[in-house]
């Protein structure tokens, strides 16, 4: 049967099992939107900004593991997606962005709402396409989904000129994808896996660093098995949070710039580092020459270019995290059934526990002013940790990472690589679309939330009860923190001066607005917010603007060179609030 290109797009999406699209209409995509108008299987979520649409698709993907889809028009519609695409690219998130394009005959003519979006997004997509002939359309969409979701996942953009979507052709859904230049390697080299197993057997002070790749490859079970079997403690990067239960006795939290003291010390003193699905980002390694100076490094990653990009690697294993970990556990079990792991690790785990006691993640509770960490702790406590947590970027993100102990994968939405302010709220919205019955929280700052605040309207329209906890300190807090510590307290343009009344903003959109100005109001406000099931909630927490994120490794320092903030008062005076 002959079909219009626009209809082929919709049919392909159905074949891929897509139920939701996030999008915004415009001139050259009207014919696609026309087919969506009375479609029963696919719902389009009309966001208020194309950036919001892409972040929502990203949040949808992170929380489900399925690709997220966005559909926008040409020109400004397309360019507005760039930040969202770059965010997904840095964090390896599978999304497909369909952008409209002016008719092929007009391309290059500076036509109305024309932008070379394929050129613009080339460096921030895993791959992108300009469809020039409707006959290629189905094949390209099929390839795009395959590329986005296989190997190291990532965003793919498909640019659809108007004449292509209004042209007709026979619709043929290609059963197979064949790309001779793209063959991701999933199985790890057996010999290398054996080498890794031997290194684990020899190591006295081993530590695992799990990254986002563990979540992408659904390797949490295998990771837990390896850690528990060999009694090796697990550090999770910002992207890896949720890959291993945060409350597990072997969990050491996050490494790096705002990582825990004990995670960083474990790395610096280890004799074996088992890095899984992480890429040694500069925020993790600190000064690279002094990173893990005594450790042999095993690096497991599906992307060969991640290996030896930043650090020397002794045992590289290219492959899918789940399969490699599984292989590794099998080899260990076969070869060393009698190995007394508990005995081998005893001294090391004892040392780590000592570090844990020396500097637990903590803050000083104050009876009169709300500490932002206290809000995060309360959110954790009152949801019993059973929530999908999104964050914006900056202090809010770090406090959320430190104090919300995630227990499950795919319950953490944060822009780790690109560090995109304005990401959290639309991402939370996307996750709420996928999980209508779950509690979805965006932990935000008063700066970040204003970068995509318009999505309140979307949440109201679709009755998405996203809870936004605004840690309102009137500042761009992380910038302020750096200025205080490294720029002689010269707060150049980090004070926002006017912050809107977030309660009124929420109410103006038809959402619920709540405020807490005193520590005693935090719990009631959260409880009130958690009751709301039919609309978004803004919780405006007026927090201590002086609060800083600690520990902190200054830029350019080695990760054991940590700052802990003001000298603590006597142990008795301070109320340590380390989460058990």
């Amino acid at each position: 049967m002959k079909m219009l290109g626009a209809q082929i797009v919709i049919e392909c999406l159905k074949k891929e099992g897509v139920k939701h699209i996030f999008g915004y209409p415009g001139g050259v995509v009207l014919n696609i939107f026309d087919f969506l108008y009375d479609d029963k299987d696919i719902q389009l979520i009309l966001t208020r900004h194309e950036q919001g649409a892409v972040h929502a698709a990203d949040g949808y993907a992170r929380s489900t593991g399925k690709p997220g889809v966005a559909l926008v028009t040409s020109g400004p519609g397309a360019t507005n997606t760039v930040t969202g695409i770059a965010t997904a690219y840095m964090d390896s998130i599978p999304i497909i962005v369909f952008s409209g394009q002016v008719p092929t005959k007009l391309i290059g003519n500076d036509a109305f709402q024309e932008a070379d979006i394929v050129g613009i997004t080339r460096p921030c997509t895993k791959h992108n396409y300009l469809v020039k002939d409707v006959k290629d359309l189905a094949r390209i969409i099929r390839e795009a989904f395959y590329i986005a979701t296989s190997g190291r996942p990532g965003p793919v953009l498909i640019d659809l000129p108007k004449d292509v979507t209004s042209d007709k052709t026979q619709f043929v859904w290609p059963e197979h994808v064949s790309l001779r230049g793209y063959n991701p390697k999933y199985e790890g080299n057996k010999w290398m896996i054996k080498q890794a197993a031997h290194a684990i057997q020899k190591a006295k002070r081993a530590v695992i660093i799990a990254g986002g790749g563990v979540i992408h490859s659904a390797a949490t079970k295998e990771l837990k098995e390896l850690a528990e079997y060999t009694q090796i403690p697990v550090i999770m990067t910002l992207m890896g949070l949720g890959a291993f239960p945060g409350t597990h006795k072997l969990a050491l939290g996050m490494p790096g710039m705002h990582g825990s003291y004990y995670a960083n010390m474990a790395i610096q003193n280890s004799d074996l580092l088992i890095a899984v699905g992480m890429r040694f980002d500069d925020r993790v390694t600190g000064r690279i020459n002094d990173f893990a100076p005594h450790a042999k490094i095993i690096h497991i990653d599906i992307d060969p270019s991640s290996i030896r990009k930043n650090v020397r690697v002794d045992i590289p294993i290219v492959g899918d995290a789940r399969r490699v970990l599984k292989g590794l556990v099998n080899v260990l079990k076969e070869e060393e059934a009698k190995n007394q792991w508990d005995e081998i690790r005893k001294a090391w785990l004892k040392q780590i526990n000592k570090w844990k006691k020396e500097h637990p993640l903590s803050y000083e509770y104050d009876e009169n002013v709300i500490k932002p960490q206290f809000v995060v702790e309360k959110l954790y406590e009152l949801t019993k940790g059973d929530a999908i947590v999104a964050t914006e970027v900056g202090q809010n993100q770090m406090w959320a990472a430190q104090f919300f102990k995630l227990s499950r994968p795919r319950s953490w939405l944060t822009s780790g690589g690109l560090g995109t302010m304005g990401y959290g709220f639309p991402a939370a919205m996307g996750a709420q679309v996928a999980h209508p019955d779950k509690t979805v929280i965006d932990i935000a700052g008063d700066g970040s939330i204003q970068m995509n605040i318009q999505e309140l309207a979307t949440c109201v329209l679709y009755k998405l009860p996203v809870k936004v906890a605004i840690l309102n300190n009137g500042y761009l807090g992380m910038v302020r923190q750096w200025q205080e510590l490294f720029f002689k307290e010269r707060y150049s343009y980090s004070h926002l001066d006017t912050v809107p009344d977030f309660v009124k903003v929420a109410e103006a959109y038809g959402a619920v607005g709540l405020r807490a100005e005193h520590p005693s109001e935090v719990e009631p406000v959260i409880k009130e917010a958690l009751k709301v099931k039919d609309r978004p909630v803004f919780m405006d927490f007026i927090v201590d603007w002086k609060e800083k994120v600690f520990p902190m490794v200054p830029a350019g320092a080695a990760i054991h060179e940590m700052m802990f903030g003001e000298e603590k008062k006597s142990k008795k005076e301070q109320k340590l609030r380390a989460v058990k």
Partner: protein
Amino acid sequence: MRHTISVLVENKFGVLTRVAGLFSGRGYNIESLSVGETIDPQLSIMTIVTTGDDQIIEQITKQLNKLIDVIKVVDLTEIDHVEREMVLVKVAPKQEDKAEVLRLTEIFRGRVVDSSPRTYTVEITGDEKKIEAFIELMKPFGIKEFVRTGKIAIAREGVKK
């Protein structure tokens, strides 16, 4: 160190930009690049000359391999191969030097492909050293301009890639 990398790619629009963009985006250097169709018209070969330490070259190779449209990457530096480059040199010798220019052209097995009352345009093919030697020799006679193709290279038969 300098490396000559041979990249087999899909012969599609936009592939050259992907490859060039990879180099510029990651701060790698391209000394020369030449592209042409292969025996299979759906494929092209790019010969790229670049410099970098081992780690950079390893990254370049891996990053090239990551591009969907790249089918195969071979660092020819590591294997026995033949390389050639062509240059067109426009020289404007004095009357009394003309014979010497022609003699040198012959020694280099070059050809005069254009001549005017004041100039000769000489075509020379060879490896880089030969091209550079010829340019050096022509300099005293007055080179008006020259254009180089950039290197192309092929592995010797029987060499395992």
